[in-house]
């Protein structure tokens, strides 16, 4: 039973989060540096280039990498202070075994013994209950090599269908919609196409805090005369200076896009030639948006009708444009529909696949793009291949040296995996780079599921809140301790460089996986000596797929600051911009620019439905959640970096002054926020910059400070993304904050 071994306070006392501030070597001015390592930030999907300063086998600081074209030396505070993970007091330096008698709940374990015990426990569960009784949860901050290996390990070594990853919480709605409309899941353009766009449309993306470097692209475009439209329930920092701000009600984005399309059709702001030549399904779509009059759109979206009309006019009449969105429209029980709505207005404008005309989701995690390409997703095989497609199975099985029939079929999404644990179907779990106890919605349910596991092993570098439930913890590696590639938000495959060796008993994650495979006596296919060898196999596995990496090499990446996929041969320069009119792709084979046999994009009817949990008298307010600049995801790393944690030490509740007055709340008051699932006490911030019917809470914290105890586990039926961005809550002032 994987319950917490000791009280959370004891766990925290031993394993943190403790704050590390600069000290010692960090503060030595003119410290002699052994080397500067050109690599990338370990945090978000922007993947800014950065140089790490290494002295005495420790990362002690950074130096901007001004030659890297994406960010030209720019960084956000997270990248700047990431080096404080080096030599962190919370770093796991040995394997651990759950031990309620030990002060911190765990006692150190020799690494080989930890591997042997983990393998034995896996074998026992699988012998008793079958291969599918063991599940694997992986992460989208891993290098593509590791992500690839995790998928292979689950299918080939563990022979379980149950692997999924935390990209499920990130941009799967965009991925699913992109595949439906374009036939391929990748941002359509390099960010340089933003620079010359005449209109920039940003829906549901707090660019300033979640993708800070993109701010510069937007401003550069503005300097050349671009207009910026921002759609968000909150006035985010970039929204403050936009030209048109639409404070939309959470979860209504598809209605807005449908309304825009309605006006485009009515005013004939359409690119008929493009629609004719490169798309199918427009008539059916046009029919479906007939009901989305500006009046109805404004009503549903909670917007002033004039704003909707103005936005439509600007979008309709622009000659170049770039539309971006992020989790704000994707984290919904109809997230795929929201994204399809966005894609529809892009396709109807014909502004895609050429210079300064683009569309992209802004991926959130370090390898948000690459992590969803090579098979750690429950229904996917390397190269963006489909696990239910016999041809795809045969290709990958060939590379892996197994019979196609031995490959498991599709598994389930990460949340469903927990439901299977709850139902007793899955009895054992291995996690890497995932902290579901903090990051999944309705997280008290997740905690209860963890308690039910017969055996749980976690690989991590810090003991995150989920790993606290583990029976065995295996000490993994930080980003700077391994080689590999990741794929950025732009679709640019770039190199992560190893700066230092793992400290203590810690191992590179892929070595731990291989050690497990060996201990399970199924080492075949898990005998790599270097990530480069894994990458070579990944290239072959992806060859001929939509996500074709076969022409990408480490050397090529380094020589050209990254290579955009698809890159089907070593001579191929890569594909920065997708869907160019005369482009060739593996699916259309010359028929057209989109990834369907006829080469045409698909207009998809995008149905509006409200969030699954609408407000009512009992729970009258919409809770929406999001990120802050100084923290990252579940905070396992950033809550341990002193200067970052200091910027935002705790979550808070954001309310509009009108709402605050109604609730009798003043700035600094303690408020009790309750949903049907749980409640939380938060300090109030009264701000003008949010809709009066909506409250906001950032989600990076754990335990009592975790807002995901309140969020709803409603999921999009297609992408299975959870509805983080809208659920119903009530708020009241607490007389005496506890």
């Amino acid at each position: 039973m994987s319950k917490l071994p000791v009280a959370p306070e004891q766990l925290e006392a031993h394993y943190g989060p403790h704050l590390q501030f600069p000290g010692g070597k960090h503060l030595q001015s003119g410290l002699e540096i052994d080397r500067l390592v050109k690599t990338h930030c370990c945090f978000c999907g922007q993947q800014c280039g950065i140089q790490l300063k290494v002295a005495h086998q420790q990362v002690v600081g950074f130096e901007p990498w001004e030659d890297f074209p994406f960010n030209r030396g720019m960084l956000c505070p997270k990248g700047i202070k990431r080096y404080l993970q080096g030599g962190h007091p919370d770093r796991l330096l040995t394997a651990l075994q759950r031990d309620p008698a030990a002060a911190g709940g765990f006692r150190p374990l020799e690494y080989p013994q930890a591997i042997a015990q983990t393998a034995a426990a896996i074998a026992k569960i699988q012998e008793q209950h079958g291969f599918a009784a063991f599940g694997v949860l992986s992460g989208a901050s891993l290098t593509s090599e590791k992500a690839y290996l995790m998928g292979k390990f689950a299918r080939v070594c563990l022979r379980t269908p149950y692997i999924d990853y935390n990209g499920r919480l990130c941009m799967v709605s965009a991925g699913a919609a992109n595949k439906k409309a374009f036939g391929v899941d990748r941002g359509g353009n390099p960010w340089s196409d933003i620079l010359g766009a005449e209109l920039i449309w940003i829906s549901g993306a707090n660019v300033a805090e979640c993708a800070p470097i993109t701010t510069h692209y937007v401003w550069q475009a503005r300097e050349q005369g671009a207009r910026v439209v921002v759609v968000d329930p909150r006035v985010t920092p970039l929204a403050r200076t936009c030209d048109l701000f639409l404070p939309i009600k959470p979860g209504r984005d598809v209605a807005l896009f449908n309304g825009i399309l309605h006006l485009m059709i009515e005013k004939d702001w359409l690119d008929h030639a493009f629609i004719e030549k490169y798309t199918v399904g427009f008539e059916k779509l046009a029919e479906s948006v007939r009901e989305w009059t500006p009046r109805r759109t404004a009503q549903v979206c909670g917007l002033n009708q004039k704003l909707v009309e103005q936005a439509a006019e600007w979008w309709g009449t622009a000659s170049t444009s770039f539309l971006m969105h992020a989790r704000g429209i994707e984290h919904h029980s109809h997230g795929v529909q929201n994204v399809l709505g966005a894609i529809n207005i892009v396709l109807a404008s014909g502004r895609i696949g050429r210079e300064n005309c683009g569309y992209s989701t802004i991926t959130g995690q370090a390898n948000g793009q690459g992590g969803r390409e090579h098979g750690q997703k429950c229904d996917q095989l390397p190269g963006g291949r489909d696990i239910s497609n016999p041809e795809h199975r045969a290709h990958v099985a060939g590379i892996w040296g197994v019979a196609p029939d031995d490959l498991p079929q599709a598994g389930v999404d990460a949340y469903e995996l927990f439901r299977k644990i709850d139902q007793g179907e899955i009895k054992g779990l291995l996690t890497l780079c995932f902290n579901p106890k903090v990051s999944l919605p309705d997280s008290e349910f997740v905690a209860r599921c963890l308690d039910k596991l017969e055996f749980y092993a976690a690989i991590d570098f810090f003991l995150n809140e989920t790993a606290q439930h583990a029976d065995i913890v295996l000490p993994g590696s930080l980003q700077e301790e391994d080689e590999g590639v990741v794929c950025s938000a732009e679709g640019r495959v770039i190199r992560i460089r190893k700066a230092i060796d793992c400290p203590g008993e810690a191992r590179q994650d892929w070595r731990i996986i291989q050690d497990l495979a060996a201990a399970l006596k199924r080492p075949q296919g898990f005998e790599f000596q270097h990530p480069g060898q894994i990458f070579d196999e990944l290239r072959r596995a992806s060859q001929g797929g939509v996500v074709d990496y076969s022409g990408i090499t480490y050397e090529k990446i380094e020589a050209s600051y990254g290579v955009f996929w698809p890159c089907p041969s070593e001579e191929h320069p890569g594909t920065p911009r997708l869907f160019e009119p005369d482009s060739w792709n593996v699916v259309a084979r010359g028929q057209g620019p989109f990834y369907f046999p006829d080469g045409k994009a698909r207009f998809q009817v995008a149905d509006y439905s409200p969030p699954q949990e609408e407000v009512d008298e009992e729970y009258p307010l919409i809770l929406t959640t999001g990120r802050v600049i100084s923290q990252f995801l579940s905070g396992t790393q950033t809550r341990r970096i002193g200067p970052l944690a200091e910027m935002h030490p705790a979550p808070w509740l954001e309310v509009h002054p009108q709402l605050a007055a109604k609730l009798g709340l003043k700035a600094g008051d303690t408020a009790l926020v309750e949903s049907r699932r749980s409640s939380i006490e938060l300090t109030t911030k009264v701000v003008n910059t949010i809709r009066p019917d909506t409250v906001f809470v950032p989600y990076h914290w754990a335990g009592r400070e975790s807002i995901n105890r309140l969020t709803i586990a409603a999921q999009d039926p297609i992408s299975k993304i959870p509805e983080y961005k809208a659920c119903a809550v009530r708020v009241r002032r607490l007389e005496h904050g506890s």
Partner: protein
Amino acid sequence: MTRERWNAGMLALTATLLLAFAIAAGSRDFHNFDAALIGYTFSTLFATFGVAYRYAMWLQRPPTAMYWRRGWTVFFRPGHLLANCRVWLHRVLGEFAANEFIFRRSKRRWLTHMLLMWGCILASAVTFPLVFGWIHFATDADRLDFYRVHVFGIPTFAFPTESLFGFLLFHALVWASFLVIAGCLMALRRRLRDAGAQALQQFAEDWAPLILLFAISVTGLMLTASYTWMKGYGYEFLALLHAVTVIATLIWLPFGKFFHIFQRPAQLGVNFYHEVGGKETQQPCLRCDRPFASQMHVKDLMTVEKQLGFHYELDEQRHYQQVCPACRRALLGLSQGEAWKGISRDV
């Protein structure tokens, strides 16, 4: 010649003459004066003139004059003198003798400064009285193995020549040079390795003083080595070399970094000023209404700024000095924002 210069010149001259008089009187009309040290004496007199002149010029600058006046007024406030003296003593010991404020900045730099400072104080305490003839040693008439110390020509205590005390006393400059050399090496190490220091340092300001102190100490040690172990080998030359380094340092005293020795005590006055200011009426910010400094300080700065030729007045009543620093920063953002307003109002 400006009035300030005339004042300063007169004061410097007075100080120099006073020292000259003190040398004459203290050495009993040069009876105890060692003529070989005449060069030292003259350079000391020069340094005295220079330091006094610069100090006087400095005191006449509006901001300094304001603090000087305020500092003393505050110190001598009726009813507080005794308490002030106690605090003063405490600070002299803590901040000056023990360099506590440097300790808080960096322990290594504190050690460096303590070594340099105490080395120099020890060396000065030995050298100047000897040079001026204020102190000399003479063999006791009845006990030939005893030395007696004469201060201003007045015989005081005696001690055995061949004693540990004698050894320590006669080699005081050696010990001082050890301290200074260690301090210099630490400071030089920092100047060679610390990237921040390297960016900002200047030869005259930062390197010259260290080189001078180092040179004095090393040549001084060589003198000792020469007469102790090498039968005075090269003594004449070394003595000359040593004299050159000391004289150069003395002459450099009023100009470069060494001047902080004389400036720094002003900090004591500042402390008293701030303490009193903290207890008095606070200035509320014109924009945010939050108090941010003592009204006395704000008013004094307004006076000083006026004397310096600045015109930060907003109107008859209000002065920019009454806006707190945080609001000044906000105003910069707001005023720049105002310039852009309406730029996109084409909707």
